[in-house]
């Protein structure tokens, strides 16, 4: 546990890329303290964000992430405004900057935003005084998902250092994978990306030189401590990159036959929602090695930690 005085130096959480290992450790350590709050048999609320206004600004559909943030905010006693893009003036042609300026007039302290455009969060951060939390931007980053994945793995294994993690499936369209690559490699894990050549951009090795890329799931499985399955994102055009779902499943589905090749104590993660029967079978998704629901549970204390660390005036700030 962290014992020394530490000031989280970031005003925003736009992605994992700007975070140092010390920052990541601070978030995960704080999450551990908030997990205690979430597990209390009595009152699961603390007054840490009392008098703070949080705006949830979701321009893309989300159930899991949005609910997780909202629970985290409520457990910290924040005041909450949920801004639904479907019924907003954006439908009348208002720009993101106009929306930001109008929100600014309400003096929010934190804005949690999901947007389809990579960089939308950075744009907002330049125009608002509030701290911005990226809840997913296109195929760019999803930092709190990576943090909760790391929290789940650290809780299970004790440390991320030296852990062998395979991230499998639709790498091309995944924002989860980019945040996880920044985080896992920075914390000393050995990452292998697995998927069909069309869905694993080779240029990723230039950004993360330490990673390995494989198109042979069966060859990779036996050496892994954790297998992180990704959702095949057909709404983002994944179908155009594969011959068919049957062939995709044949080579890249995590199923009982492949689990037999894995270490007995391997763990299985998935950011959800799951395409059951496509990238993972139900008996594996619900099996004894899965940490999928742990990921959902851990999302709340991790997001509480992020909101808490961003909610205070900082000393010297870095983006």
């Amino acid at each position, binding site marked *: *546990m*962290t*014992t*020394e*005085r*530490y*000031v*989280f130096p970031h005003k925003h959480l736009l992605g994992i890329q700007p975070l140092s290992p010390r920052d990541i450790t*601070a978030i995960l*350590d*704080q999450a*551990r*303290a*908030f*997990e*205690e*709050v979430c597990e*209390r*048999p*009595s*009152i699961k*609320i*603390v*007054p*840490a*964000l*009392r*008098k*703070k206004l949080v705006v949830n600004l979701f321009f893309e559909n989300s159930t899991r992430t949005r609910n997780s943030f909202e629970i985290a905010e409520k457990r910290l006693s924040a005041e909450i405004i949920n801004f639904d893009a479907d019924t907003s003036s954006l439908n009348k042609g208002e720009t993101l900057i106009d929306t930001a300026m109008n929100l600014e007039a309400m003096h929010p302290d934190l804005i949690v935003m999901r947007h389809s455009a990579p960089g939308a969060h950075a744009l907002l951060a330049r125009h608002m005084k509030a701290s911005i939390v990226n809840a997913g931007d296109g195929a760019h980053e999803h930092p709190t998902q990576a943090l909760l994945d790391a929290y789940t793995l650290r809780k299970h294994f004790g440390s991320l250092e030296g852990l062998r993690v395979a991230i499998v499936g639709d790498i091309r369209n995944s924002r989860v994978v980019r945040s996880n690559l920044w985080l896992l490699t920075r914390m000393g894990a050995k990452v292998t990306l697995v998927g069909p050549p069309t869905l694993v951009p080779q240029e990723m090795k230039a950004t993360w030189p330490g990673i390995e890329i494989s198109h042979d799931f069966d060859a990779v499985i036996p050496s892994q401590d954790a297998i992180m399955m990704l959702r095949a994102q057909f709404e983002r055009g994944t179908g155009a990159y594969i011959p068919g779902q049957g062939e995709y499943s044949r080579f890249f589905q995590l199923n009982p036959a492949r689990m037999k090749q894995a270490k007995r104590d391997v763990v299985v993660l998935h950011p959800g929602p799951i395409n059951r029967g496509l990238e993972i079978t139900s008996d594996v998704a619900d099996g004894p090695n899965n940490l999928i629901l742990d990921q959902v549970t851990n999302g709340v204390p991790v997001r509480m930690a992020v909101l*808490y*660390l961003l*909610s*205070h*005036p*900082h*000393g010297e700030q870095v983006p």
Partner: protein
Amino acid sequence: MPEALGPCPMDPGQMEAALRRLAADLVARLRPEEEVVLLGIRSRGLPLAERLATFLRAATGAAVPVGSLDITLYRDDLTEMVGSPIVRPTEIPFTLKERTVVLVDDVLYTGRTVRAALDALLDHGRPRRVMLLVMADRSGRELPIQADLAGLRVEVPPGHRVAVRLKEIDGEDGVTVETC
């Protein structure tokens, strides 16, 4: 009565004697039917509570449960602080219902820590009674809070701090009055 202000109000031997006396005084104040638990306020209240539990067991033959309370999230100045103070888990592995809770801390000064501890405590359950035990009770209260039991009561002029040192955290025992 306030004790004389000096550079070293308590040495290790005096601190151990004070803890033994506090344990005996606590036993004397409890009714036979009371189920008592100790809650140490992090960070120095926890080792003090653990030591007290040892003395209580020696005195009564019964094990007294010990938990810890982190009051950071309940501080009344939390939203104004620069940087987020590190929060450590609160650990109360027992029910508080119908128990007598003894809050244990190193120094009672403004009373704001104890106010926060009471808020935190009541979020965990509804004890039958709450008592406050501190190693050093110093002047400078800003809230109407007082200790039930204190190892040392000391008047300290402004610009001074009372520091309780513990071997578990600081490598040595003792109470000192220092200029800020």
